């Protein structure tokens, strides 16, 4: 902690829960309290507030800012506050807004539907050996790989970026003595929002990221702060709840499904007439076009106008495929085979 604070970051969040006092007579917490007092006056230090701590709040936490890191009932979303206390990302973003004047963060902001980054920062390549990470692939290719592994999870191996998006400094690097290494550390830490976290064997503090798999909990806070600084108040959030757990996005998905199925039903009632008559062909084409436009409009409206979390892409893609399949008769050979097999089976019976 001291080694980070020396580099004068903008703020430091310590993602450690000071629950148990494991100090001994020879190793008192006083040096830690002194570090907090020494730097806490000029650098905001955020420390998780916990219900039961062996430490007195007057000494260890006197100059630090309390934040909340434990919550429930928010599904996979990142809340802004629990009670009246900010979560780390929102507390740091509030400080960012105050210092830069670029944004304004009112109280009671909706939770964040976190968007996880894929690429590593350029600084990361100066710090660590990243051979096990995925390189700088084309974003479209990466997105396609993610979609493929989500849709065909049984057939395609799980796709994930095994390295965190946020710049990660190994703790031993903080003991650097060479001037070049110290200078590099300074460029990475000075005037930055720094988070200190640990992934300790036997005390796993992990969250699930659709991009990375299981990842240390501190990266959740880092990614939430990154979303806030990147999108400000236009970050992605859950769609408003309509009834119990059902939100606007679920209802919209259902309506779109119903529309597509009604449309498909109409087309499939008499497909031969539909596709031979010119006016009917036009109807199929324009109605399909209208449906596709409606789908894309909903996606754009939800994601970029209302900033709701991206709609269920897999469901939408299935719908699009379902519409396009009628036009291009994607499953015609399969249907033919099925009807042939059915006929063959009935013939055998007779």
């Amino acid at each position, binding site marked *: 902690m001291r080694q980070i604070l020396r580099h004068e970051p903008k703020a430091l969040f310590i993602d450690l829960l000071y629950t148990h006092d494991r100090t001994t007579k020879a190793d008192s917490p006083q040096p830690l309290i002194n570090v907090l007092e*020494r730097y806490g006056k000029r650098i905001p230090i955020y420390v998780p507030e916990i219900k039961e701590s062996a430490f007195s709040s007057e000494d260890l936490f006197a100059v630090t800012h309390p934040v909340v890191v434990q919550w429930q009932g928010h599904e996979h979303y990142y809340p802004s506050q629990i009670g009246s206390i900010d979560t780390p990302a929102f507390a740091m973003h509030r400080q960012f807004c105050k210092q830069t004047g670029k944004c304004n963060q009112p109280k009671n902001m909706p939770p964040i539907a976190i968007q996880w980054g894929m690429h590593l920062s350029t600084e990361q390549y100066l710090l660590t050996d990243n051979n096990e990470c995925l390189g700088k692939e084309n974003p479209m290719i990466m997105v396609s790989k993610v979609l493929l592994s989500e849709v065909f999870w049984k057939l395609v191996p799980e796709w994930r970026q095994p390295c965190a998006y946020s710049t990660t400094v190994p703790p031993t690097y903080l003991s650097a003595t060479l001037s070049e290494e110290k200078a590099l550390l300074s460029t990475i830490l000075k005037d930055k929002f720094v988070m200190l976290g640990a992934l300790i064997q036997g005390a796993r503090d992990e969250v699930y990221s659709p991009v990375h798999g299981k990842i240390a909990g501190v990266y959740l806070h880092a990614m939430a702060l990154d979303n806030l600084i990147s999108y400000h108040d236009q970050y992605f959030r859950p769609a408003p709840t309509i009834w119990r757990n059902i939100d606007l996005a679920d209802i919209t998905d259902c309506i779109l499904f119903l529309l597509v199925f009604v449309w498909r039903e109409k087309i499939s009632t008499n497909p031969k007439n539909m596709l031979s008559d010119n006016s009917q062909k036009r109807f199929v084409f324009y109605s399909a076009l209208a449906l596709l436009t409606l789908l894309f409009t909903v996606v754009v409206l939800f994601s970029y106008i209302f900033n709701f979390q991206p709609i269920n892409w897999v469901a939408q893609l299935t719908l699009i495929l379902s519409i396009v399949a009628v036009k291009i008769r994607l499953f015609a050979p399969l249907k033919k085979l099925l009807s042939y097999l059915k006929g063959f089976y009935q013939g055998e019976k007779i």
Partner: protein
Amino acid sequence: MIKKLLVMLFMCSVFGHIHAEPLAIVDFSVDTIETLDSEGKVIATVPVSSLPKTAIVVIEKNEDLDLVAIKDNSGEVVWLDTYYVKLNQGKVVDLPCYKIVTTGAKDSRETGTMGFGGTCEDAN
């Protein structure tokens, strides 16, 4: 034979003397510096010009807290953070190229927990 031994003894004493050169502060990387107590508590923030002129002999070093003790102009012992001073000798930490920590697969599980160690036994 005796001559050789005398030369060896002389060389040892010379090298021993060089090695025993006292640890000293030769420069500062800041204009003002915090003076601390032995546990790192801030006593005051002073301009480095108000401290004795370099090289300032270090009378004690705390490796754990990265602090060095010197005597100020009034003869009081004060501690300084080694990050802001340049010493005439010091350790060099060799940093190998660390492999970045990789994340776990979706189905990775850890079904054991960390023990509390011996401190709890000491406390009871």
